[in-house]
């Protein structure tokens, strides 16, 4: 187990090196002059040049890259020109917000998608199957910002069930003492039920938006996988042994059918990380998606690089978790590893 972890982490190193090089080059190649932006519209040419020198942007590219690497090695991702904060601190503060949103979104998607897929597979071409297909197709067809706005319109503006879409907590609550950075967990750890319900209420609509988006791939994958498992020899043998319907569907079929679904989750997560950016905008969610967009618009290199790095690390970590989950389900993989 430990050996596998070490090997997988080692295998991720070239990926991360690639990400470092590409993000560095890409942000330099983008149009826009950060020195000019930072200096402001009223600055003189000399002032802009001065700032350019301060930022090290007058150096040759390879020198800039060397500086960048040296900073990285020290855990310094640079300063954000827009917020004036170290990028690492910004990301550390905002990443939990995005992670909480994405994971809850995924949980909603899996929580509805897997049962939907199972129900559809048990009665293929029945009305249940068609209903699941319609819901899944609609979910994936609507752009997330539109679903988000629709939910806000219905549940906040019309029905008044949801709080205003203004971030992780309403203005009158203070965040729980930080342990994990996930408000839902931290508030429970602090025993603060009021903050917990407040955070959950804020989280409901954006997480639902992401969940609806990710429902389709999970439901479709579960359905297809269940159908093929249900027609396999060992299911027929289990029926020949007279096992009960529940045992056959859940313990025999579903556990086997989940293997490809777990693999799909990795892909779905990467979709979600992308979709996050727009959803954070709609719900004024203080996550790293909106942070990166603002930085990109301002030609603020350091946060964009930091963002891409954080995403790459997150992605590598998630895939590792998925590999471990796969092993927990499938004994055949355990042996090979």
């Amino acid at each position: 187990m430990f050996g596998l972890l070490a090997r997988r982490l080692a295998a991720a190193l070239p990926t991360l090196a690639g990400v470092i090089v590409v993000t560095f080059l890409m942000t330099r190649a983008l149009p826009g002059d950060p020195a000019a932006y930072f200096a402001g519209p009223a600055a003189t040419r000399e002032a802009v040049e001065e700032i350019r020198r301060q930022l090290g942007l007058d150096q040759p590219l390879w020198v800039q890259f060397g500086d960048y690497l040296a900073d990285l090695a020290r855990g310094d991702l640079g300063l954000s020109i827009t917020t004036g904060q170290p990028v690492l601190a910004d990301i550390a503060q905002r990443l939990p917000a995005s992670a909480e949103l994405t994971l809850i979104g995924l949980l909603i998607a899996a929580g509805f998608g897997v049962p939907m897929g199972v129900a559809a597979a048990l009665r293929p071409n029945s009305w249940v199957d068609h209903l699941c297909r319609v819901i899944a197709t609609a979910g994936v067809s609507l752009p997330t910002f539109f679903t988000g706005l629709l939910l806000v319109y219905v549940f906040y503006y019309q029905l008044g069930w949801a709080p205003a879409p203004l971030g992780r907590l309403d203005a009158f609550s203070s965040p729980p003492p930080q342990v994990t950075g996930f408000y839902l967990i931290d508030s429970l750890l602090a025993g603060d039920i009021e903050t917990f319900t407040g955070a959950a209420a804020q989280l409901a609509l954006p997480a639902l938006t992401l969940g609806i988006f990710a429902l389709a791939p999970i439901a479709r994958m579960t359905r297809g996988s269940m159908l093929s498992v249900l027609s396999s020899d060992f299911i027929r043998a289990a029926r020949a042994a007279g096992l009960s319907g529940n045992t056959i569907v859940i313990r025999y079929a579903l556990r086997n059918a989940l293997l490809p679904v777990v693999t799909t989750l990795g892909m779905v997560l990467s979709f979600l990380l992308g979709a996050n950016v727009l959803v954070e905008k709609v719900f004024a969610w203080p996550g790293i998606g909106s942070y990166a967009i603002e930085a990109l618009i301002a030609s603020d290199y350091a946060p964009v690089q930091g963002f891409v790095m954080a995403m790459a690390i997150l992605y590598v970590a998630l895939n590792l978790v998925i590999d471990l989950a796969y092993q927990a389900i499938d004994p055949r993989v355990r042996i090979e590893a």
Partner: protein
Amino acid sequence: MSQPPLLSVEDLSVEFRTRSGTVRALEAISFAIARGETVGVVGESGSGKSVTAYTVMRLLDDAARITSGRIMFGGLDMLGADAGTLAELRGRELSMIFQNPRASLNPIRRVGQQIADVLLRHANVGAKEAGERAVALLAEVGIPEPSRRAKAYPFELSGGMCQRIGIAIALACRPALLIADEPTTGLDVTTQATIMDLVSELGRARGMATMLITHDLGLATERCDRVVVMHAGHVVEDAPTAALFAAPRHPYTARLFAATPRPGLALSEISTIPGGLPDLRRDDLPPCRFSTRCDRRRDACDAPPLPRVTHQGRLVACHNPL
């Protein structure tokens, strides 16, 4: 026979709806199995042996339709029984072992647990006792170190071992009838004999009836009290093994014997059966589905109905038997 048979299949017909037409997989087949009796069902691939087995188990897939007939098992009308009754019956009174032993086991569940699942379902025992009995069953089917093997997954065991697990699952609740669908086909030759010995031995000890489905007439005559010969969805001959072996009456049975290798017979003397099975999707299937391959065919063979004559306990479906 004074006692009613354990299983009786009467006039059973089964069709499959496929995109390219209706396959008449079984047509008016009848046979019976008495308590404790071992009956072989023999025929080449596509003759309807497995369809017969799955129909008796009521495990046919949705494309299949039972168009006529009656299946009685221990006094129960199997075709009229509801799903709950059938699930209670399967694994307890009526079990099955399969052609591909490894694929017939759940790949990601420990084999001991898979045996215990059946016991938990049918034997009215708790989890602990089910686990203990699973280990005992593993020992009974001749698996060395049973308590260690109970924790193994199917992929860690050989094909022969997997078939032993399949047998343990099938026999866990002491069924009255075991249907063995080509149980040794996927195994190597040395394992085949031991698996068959195991089935015969455990079957005899339990007074269990066995329906042995095989394409190997030699195996059937060696192991069975009676042999039912199937061809293209018909039962063409049904006779006690000794009588069948001494003098096959249906031309197809005779051909099968001639095509079966046995000691003292040179390879060049083993004949093949000309032609293939007729396309069972045809609307104009002849009454005798063997007629196009038969060298004893007469004009009468093309006139319906196909005679099914029972004489001295053996059935022959032929106009011109040997």
